[in-house]
């Protein structure tokens, strides 16, 4: 569904990704781990179109993404939830609604989906708190819900459970299973322990700029 | 639009408006506020006054951005006409220049006799003299006086201020110095100043104002008709009377000098 072949990216001369390849199939959950600074976040950003790789090629739905630009259609089908998500300083509800408006979904449907998201992420108690003042876990839950309402076909999660409590973590795990059941492809960057509950996921490791099958020793 | 362009008895908005560029002295002294409403009422024109420095007023006229100019700088006025920017220059009024200074008169110019002698005395006593320094009519007059006095050799007390008459008077007052001023501006500001008139009546101190229409051949768009109407009125017995009757503190500031339309 979404793939990268031999992608390379360097920051100020320091190679972070180097002939890095990865592929996710519809309905698949893929857990990517790796040391701090190994380039996991960078790879997600490349896959999300936020960074243009220095070399290599991306593929979507079996077709190569040409060198010119990262197509709108791919972007629309894809959601990326960063480790420390940014919330607009409007309201919790407006944050959840933001993508729906951008996707020009009609108001009734938007209201329905926003309400569902508030319920799903258990945000009722904080729905009136200014978003910038929410707790770490609350922010992360809102960001996850904000991606979820858009019903993406590929989701890239960067350490999605790092600040979550037990219940929320279980919920994210359930969400991932649910997404996969609906043929969504899910790529999760995690320091493994976070998602030990996630059954049936394929595990990969990023080291020296490349993605590899993890050997027990290198596992993070 | 077509209507507006059609010649007729009804004047269009542009034709009803007269733009006059003038020096600040006429506007600031209050003369124009006294004069123009009478004209406007009688002839149905609106006069828009742009008051700037002498040089700027002539420049605006030369560019065709005014219909007529009212200034006092004889040489520059003649140059303006000679260059074809203006026509029909007329004398309209005059006042005179005076040398003012502190009551104590440290340079003792009260008794110097002539204007040129006064200047010499100011130099000799190393007193302060604030010059307009801006090529205005007043500044030209000052330079002429210096020529009579044997030339200007600058001394530390000679301050070339590069500002308008009102400002220079304020500065001279503040610095307890001398300056050359037109009587109109000085009279209108006298209540705010400690300066007094020390030298006056010298024949060389006459300050004639001229009024010049902008050349409609050069600038076909100008309201030549309006300009002419205003000039005619200003130089008419009625206009001249009105100029003569303009007074501040019971004193006339300007004296009619029109010789009638030429």
């Amino acid at each position, binding site marked *: 569904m979404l793939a990268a072949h031999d992608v390379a990216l360097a920051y100020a001369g320091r190679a972070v990704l180097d002939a890095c390849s990865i592929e996710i199939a519809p309905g698949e959950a893929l857990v990517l781990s790796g040391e701090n600074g190994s380039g996991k976040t960078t790879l997600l950003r490349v896959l*999300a179109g*936020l960074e243009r790789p220095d070399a290599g090629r991306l593929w979507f739905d079996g077709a190569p993404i040409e060198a010119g630009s990262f197509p709108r259609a791919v*972007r*629309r089908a894809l*959601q*990326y939830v*960063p480790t*420390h*998500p*940014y919330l*607009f*300083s*409007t309201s919790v509800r407006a944050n959840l609604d*933001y*993508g729906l408006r*951008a*996707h020009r979904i009609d108001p009734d449907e938007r209201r329905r989906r926003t309400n569902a998201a508030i319920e799903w992420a258990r945000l009722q108690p904080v729905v009136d708190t200014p978003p*910038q003042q929410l707790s770490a876990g609350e922010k992360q839950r809102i960001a996850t819900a*904000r991606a979820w309402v*858009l019903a993406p076909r590929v989701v890239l999660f960067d350490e999605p459970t790092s600040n979550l409590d037990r219940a929320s973590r279980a919920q994210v795990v359930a969400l991932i299973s649910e997404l996969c059941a609906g043929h969504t492809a899910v790529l999760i960057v995690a320091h493994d322990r976070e998602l030990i509950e996630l059954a049936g996921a394929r595990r990969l490791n990023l080291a020296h700029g490349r993605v590899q099958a993890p050997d027990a020793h290198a596992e993070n | 639009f077509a209507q507006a362009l059609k010649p007729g008895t009804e004047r269009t908005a*542009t034709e009803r408006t007269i*733009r006059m560029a003038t020096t*600040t002295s006429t*506007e*600031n002294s209050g003369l124009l506020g006294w004069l123009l409403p009478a004209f406007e009422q009688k002839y149905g024109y609106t006069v*828009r*006054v*742009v*008051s*700037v420095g002498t040089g700027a007023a002539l420049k605006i006229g030369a*560019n*065709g*951005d005014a219909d007529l100019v009212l200034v006092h700088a004889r040489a520059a006025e003649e140059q303006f006409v000679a260059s074809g920017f203006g026509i029909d220059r007329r004398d309209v009024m005059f006042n005179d220049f005076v040398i003012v200074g502190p009551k104590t008169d440290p340079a003792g110019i009260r008794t110097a006799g002539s204007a040129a002698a006064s200047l010499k005395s100011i130099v000799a006593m190393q007193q302060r003299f604030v010059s307009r320094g801006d090529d205005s009519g007043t500044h030209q007059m000052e330079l002429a006086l210096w020529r009579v006095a044997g030339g200007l050799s600058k001394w530390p007390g000679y301050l070339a201020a590069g500002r*308008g008459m*009102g*400002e220079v*008077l*304020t500065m001279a007052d503040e610095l307890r110095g001398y300056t050359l001023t037109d009587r109109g501006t000085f009279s*209108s*500001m006298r209540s*705010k*100043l400690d300066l007094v008139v020390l030298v006056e009546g010298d024949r060389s101190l006459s300050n004639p104002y001229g009024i010049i229409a902008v050349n409609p051949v050069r*600038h076909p*768009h100008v309201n030549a008709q309006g300009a002419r109407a205003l000039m005619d009125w200003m130089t008419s017995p009625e206009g001249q009377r009105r100029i003569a009757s303009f007074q501040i503190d019971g004193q006339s500031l300007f004296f009619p000098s029109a010789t009638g339309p030429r």
Partner: protein
Amino acid sequence: MDLLEPTRDALYRLASLDPALWQIVAVSMRVSLIALALVTPLAVVTGFALAMYRFPGRRLLIVLLQSLLAFPTVVIGLLLYLLLSRRGPLGAWQLLFTQEAMIVGQVIIAFPIISAFTLAAVQAADPRLHETARLLGATELRAALSVLREVRFALIAAVTSGFGRVVSEVGCALMVGGNIAGLTRNIPTAIALETSKGAFTEGIALGIVLMVLALAVNVVLALTQGGGRGTPSIDAAWYRG
């Protein structure tokens, strides 16, 4: 010199809707508010683009913009004069000595200040903001509007500064307006006139009138901005020394 008397008199005339004074005030407000309304979108877009996009010559443009702040308003007035004069290329438009010409001048004057402020504001914004908007499917336009909404506090400061600058400037207004009584005489040119007459206290009184009006405009702008974000700070008394 007694300042109280003329100030009280000016404020009294303001309050009692003295037509001569209000005529001047109205010119000031009309010209400056129209100029601001015209220039703000353009200046904000420029500041935003300079902050957000990398392109060749960007740094140069920023330095140029900052330098434009040092361009005397009278020089802007002179250039505009040459353009609008009957002898100038746009002389046929007959805009010289009109409020329209003053508006154009103020647009030019306000542009660099509002752009520079916007640039600083957008540059200080969280870089994840724009990215998040785009990721959620916003077009570049929608994302830009979202960024601007988040920095609205600083944007209001930008517009306020621009307003302060144009409503008080005299060089250009004199040059292209001509300070014509009842037509293009605004508060600053009226002050210049009073000053040249040596009527200092009247000038100051008009200045205070301008301050009062600016205060009113700023209070309105401050209110539209809501609470403002404000940097939450540690309780200074509790955590002192």
